Structure formats: structure tokens, C-alpha cells
């Protein structure tokens, strides 16, 4: 049910098919006038923590795309598997969470490499579309495997009191994890930029992303570079999954689907292939989703639509995304 603009009453009054009237502009000012500083601060904190989570996962999409020019649809499901790894480490085997955290990163990176080896490497010289379909296949395989192994009933992500405790600042309630996520995202970004711009591996990555045929001719070990890309992307997915689990502690086999879609959008908004762009895209999406509900409470049901509208608007004016480079298709 979309609001239809009604002509006789001015541009900002919308009429729903049911006869309900809605004056967006007046209501917007009412909401602003009534919103306390504490509420606004709370909304911003919520938005930043959601945005940095999106950013963390979006980096994984953007990296693989940058190197392979393919969308790794299985990335969201790697996040989901990482949540299950953490569940088994802490809840089932009672390993302390900080050790599990490292273990989950290793296991998830291994999973990422295995997927690359089995689903993507054999198709290295096949058309790009085939790899894309293979990625979708890998995604479904992981979802159904998880469904079969762990059942569709939600499990509870292990509670880590240090991270899940609530800190009260004035009248703003902040979960410790909400402070940790942006810090981790920021550190990851810096480390990644360093690797890409100032190391030999990074140089090889950039070479592969520019033109991998030429890079191969010049002696770059393509398979190694791609494996490293998947290790980095999946490690970030594992970190993201851990944060995600502490923040939203229900684990299901389809947990990755919606966040995966949103993070992919974040990567595209920022300019897919660009790491800084993915982070910016993540923040735009996370903050935007929260603030649209904050300022237009009646639109809370259309929150997901926001992500897609933003995507369309940005692509309309800047088809390569905010920080994306324009490349010409080579023959």
C-alpha cells in the first residue's frame, strides 16, 4: 500500500488507498520538535553500530569483486556459518570466547578458501556468468547444509557478558558491542588499506584487479593472490559474524540472506571494488535505515525499501557508485 500524492492538498500530503491521510512535512516537524536529545543520540548510536556492521561485511563483497569481477553470493552464508562455528566453540565445547574468536576466524577463512577452490577456481577461464551461477549454487549449498545439520530452529548465540553488557551514558543506553564494532571496522579498514597499498601482496592484488591476464603474464601467481583475497574477505566475515551474533543473538540458516543483500547494496553504493567506498556505503545504509524510522515513524514498515531507493537514486546519478572508478570495457 503506497501513499499516493493528492493534488488538492499540497505536495506533502499523501493519501493512502484506505482513505487515511498523511501530512509528511508537518509530521516530520512534529517529530523533530518532540524528539529529545537523548532519543536522537540513541538513534545515532544505533545507526552507527548497524552501519559499521554492514561496512564490515560489505568489505568482503567489494574485495572479491575488485579482484575477480564477480559477486560472491556465498559471502553472506559464510557469515552465517561463522555464527554456527562460534556457537559450537563457546556453547558446545566451552572454549573461552577470545580463543573461539580466533578459531572462528581461522575456520571461516578456511571455508572461504575451500569454496574458492571448489566452486570458483575450476571456472577461472569460463564466462563470468558461469562463475556467478556457481556462486549462487555455493550460497544455496551452504544454506541447505546448515538447515540439514543444525535444523531451522533458531539457536542462541553464546552470551559474552563483556560485550553484551549495557552502558548508560546520561539517558542513552549503549551496548558495549556497539562501541566495539565501529572501532573494529575502523581498524580493519586501516589494516586492509595498508595491505593493499603498501605490501607486495597488495601490489599483486591491484595488478590482478586491473587486468589479470597481463598480471599472469608478468609472473604474478594469480591463484595465490585470489586465495589471499578470500582469506581476508572471509576473516572479515568471521569478525562481522561474531559482532552480529553478539548484537542479534538468534542464529538460523537463513540469517545471512537479508544482511547479505544490504551489505551488497552498501558495496555497490560506495562503488563496488573500492574498500573505502564499501565502508562509506555501509554507514550510509545503516544510519539511513535507523534515521528514516526516527524521523518518519509511520514509514517503519518501509525500512527495507529505503535501502533499495537509495541504491536506485545513487546509481541513477553515479552509475559506478560514490567512489567507483569509471572503467572502459576491454575487448
Amino acid at each position, binding site marked *: 500500500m503506497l501513499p499516493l500524492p493528492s493534488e488538492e492538498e499540497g505536495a506533502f500530503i499523501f493519501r493512502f488507498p484506505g482513505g487515511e491521510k498523511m501530512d509528511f512535512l508537518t509530521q516530520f516537524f512534529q517529530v523533530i520538535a518532540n524528539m529529545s536529545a537523548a532519543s536522537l543520540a540513541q538513534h545515532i548510536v544505533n545507526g552507527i553500530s548497524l552501519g559499521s556492521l554492514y561496512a564490515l561485511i560489505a568489505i568482503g563483497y567489494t574485495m572479491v569483486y575488485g579482484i575477480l569481477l564477480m559477486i560472491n553470493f556465498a559471502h553472506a552464508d559464510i557469515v552465517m556459518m561463522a555464527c554456527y562455528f562460534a556457537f559450537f566453540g563457546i556453547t558446545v565445547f566451552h572454549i573461552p570466547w577470545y580463543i573461539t574468536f580466533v578459531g572462528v576466524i581461522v575456520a571461516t577463512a578456511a571455508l572461504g578458501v575451500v569454496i574458492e577452490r571448489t566452486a570458483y577456481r575450476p571456472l577461472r577461464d569460463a564466462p563470468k556468468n558461469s562463475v556467478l551461477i556457481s556462486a549462487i549454487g555455493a550460497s544455496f549449498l551452504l544454506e541447505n547444509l546448515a538447515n540439514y545439520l543444525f535444523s531451522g530452529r533458531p539457536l542462541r548465540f553464546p552470551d559474552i557478558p563483556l560485550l553484551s553488557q549495557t552502558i548508560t551514558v546520561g539517558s542513552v*543506553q549503549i551496548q558495549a558491542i556497539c562501541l566495539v564494532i565501529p572501532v573494529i571496522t575502523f581498524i580493519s579498514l586501516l589494516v586492509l588499506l595498508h595491505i593493499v597499498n603498501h605490501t607486495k601482496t597488495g601490489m599483486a592484488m591491484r595488478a590482478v584487479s586491473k587486468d589479470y591476464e597481463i598480471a599472469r603474464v608478468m609472473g604474478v601467481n594469480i591463484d595465490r593472490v585470489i586465495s589471499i583475497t578470500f582469506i581476508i574477505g572471509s576473516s572479515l566475515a568471521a569478525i562481522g559474524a561474531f559482532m552480529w551474533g553478539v548484537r542479534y543473538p538468534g542464529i538460523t540458516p537463513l540469517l545471512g540472506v537479508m544482511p547479505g543483500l544490504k551489505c551488497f547494496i552498501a558495496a555497490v553504493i560506495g562503488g563496488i571494488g573500492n574498500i573505502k567506498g564499501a565502508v562509506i556505503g555501509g554507514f550510509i545504509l545503516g544510519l539511513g535505515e535507523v534515521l528514516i524510522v526516527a524521523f518518519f515513524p509511520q514509514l517503519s514498515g518501509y525500512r527495507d525499501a529505503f535501502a533499495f531507493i537509495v541504491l536506485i537514486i545513487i546509481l541513477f546519478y553515479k552509475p559506478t557508485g560514490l567512489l567507483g572508478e569509471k572503467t572502459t570495457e576491454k575487448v
Partner: protein
Amino acid sequence: MKIKKLLSVLLASAVVMGALTGCGGDKKDEKKDAGDTIKVGVFLPLTGDNAAGGELELRGIKLANKLHPEVNGKKVQLIVADNKSDKAEAASVAARLIEKDKVCTILGSYGSSLAMAAGNIVKEAKVPAIGTSCTNPQVTANNDYYFRACFIDPFQGTVMANYAYKQGAKKIAIVQEVSNDYSVGLAKFFVEAFQKLTNDKDCIIDVANYQTGDKDFTAVLTNLKAKNPDAVFAPGNFTESALLVKQARQLGIKAPFMGGDTWETQEFIDVGGKDVEGCVLSTAFDREKASTEEAKRFLKAYTDEYKGEPSALSALGYDSYLIAIDAIKRAGTTDSQKIRDAIAATKDLEAVTGKTTLDKNGDAIKAAVIKVVKDGKFKYLDFVDVK
């Protein structure tokens, strides 16, 4: 291609068969009071996917027949028919009960789609049917001959509104899962009932929406917190609801959360942990607390007969039988039309799941059980009579 053709032939013949049995029901059958028994049809899935539910309801019906074997001085004979959890079979079984067995009323079924499959047949034959646990509003909608012993899903909204009112809540916030019929239905009934009870158009101070599969509810909850409601009504899936309540507590919202029977799963407590403590929900029946005299008799008879705890389904099966014989008694005849009118007039019947009245759609209006999450378990909290 061949398979496709074969399928279409099969489908066509199924449609023709369905139409034929449908026509069969048209004939007005002569009422023969066959001696001194009253025949009541039982229409349940006893094999197939829904067999477990059907079996539990049959237990309840048989038990009721044992405790109340006679009406108007005549013995009640149950004619049990298996609809095999299959819609096509359900239609022909219902027709057979009416045509061949000449039952004066039908009890069942478990499963809304099975009941709907028989809907037109009972309507055209003008033989009343009383559903046991089919909760879809479509079962009784536009069908004057289908009734039910259970309440429809959205009715729980009315129940919770009564409960909230009884607890003294004045300002309520609603959080609904807009993409879920169940959630929206409960919320709508809640709003209507609560506005009527409080006589206050502005008693609902916030209506927030979310989508199935959402994980982050902080934005709507921050808005909600600023409005400071006395209680929050948030019917929905247990997965989303558990996260919703958890995030509400993290944001410092102290108001109690209320929901529907979908919350009554272990996963709700597993995921929500200590944050869902104190959440209240409505459900049809509680085996630990008997609300009526009839319920006490039922509980005792059930444990004697079957050993173990009765389920809500058995209670509803029992109640459908009670509604039928109560109507037959008041009608004083086995004429289906008169029984139908008597069923429609059912009022304050002492049944196992509470005093039952049928509304104009033929849906039960009755008391419901309120449960609360306490120490990681669902505990009986209260009993709400809906006027």
C-alpha cells in the same frame, strides 16, 4: 509432455469428481429418525500428515461421548470417518457422512484446509459442522453451516486487550510484523477491543512496523521508548519477537511485552534468555489449571483413560462434541436445520476450554489462558473472560 498430459487428465477428472460429489449433496435428504440413536459424524485426519493432531482430537471426542452418551433420551452414535489429511478425500468423506450415514451434524476437522474442503458440501446439504481446531477465518466466513469450537487467531488480540485493561494499562504501543497475517490480525483486534474498553480513541500511542526476518529493531524501539507506554503488544514470530524484546530491554524499556500463542516455544526462551522474563502471552488451554467444572471432569477422565497429560487439541475435540449435543438438546430433534439454528445460538456453554459463546460468524468467543515467562518456563498466570 506425456506426464503433463496425464496430469491434466487426472486434474480434470478430479474436478469432475468433485463437482459430482458436490451435486450429490444438493439433494435434500429425508430426515429419518432411525430408531433410538442419534448419529454424529466425526470428520478427522486419522492417517497422513495430520494424523497426530486428528488422533488427539478423536480422543477428546470419544471421551466426551463416554461421559455424555445420551441426549434427549437417545444414544449418541459416533460415526468416525478418516479424511486422510487430503483435501479431495475430505470433500468425498464429508459427502459420504451426509449421504450414506445420514448424520445430523459433523464434528471436525483438524486443519483449516480440510475443513474448507468440506465447507461447500455441508453448506449445500444444510448439515451443520463444528470445527475442532481449524483457526483460519475463511472456514466459517460466508458459511452459515460451519462453526468451530476454537477461537480464530486474531481473537487473541481481543483477549490480550482485555488482559491489559484488567491490569490497568492505559497507553499501549503496538509493534507488528507487517508482512505477517497473524501478527497484523492480532494487532487489529487488539486495537479495536482496547479502544472500546478504555473508551479512549488515543489509547494506542504508537504503532511500529517491521518485516519478517528483520534483526535490528533499535530504531522503532527508540521511538517507542520516548512515548513511554504502559505496555507493548507485539504479536509475531518467536525468532523476531525474542530479539525485539531483548533489544527493548537493552534500550532500557521497562514496559511489559505481550504477545500471542506463537511465542509459546522453547526457542523464544532460549534466544531471549533472561530478557524475555515477564513476557505474557495468550493460549487456548492450560493443562494445569481447570477453569470450569467440565474441565475438571475432562482432566480426570483423560488421565484415567489415556494416562498422561491431555493436549489442547483433545480439549477442543471434547468441546466440539459438547457444543453439538447441547444444540441437539435445545433443538429437541435431529432435524439438521433446527440443530444448526441451535448451534448458532450457543451461549455461555460450560466447556473444557472455558465458557463458550458462538458469535455471528460461528467462531467461538471464550475465555483464554494467559501465560507468563518465569524462570525460563511458561507459567500459568491468569484467566481472561471476554465479554
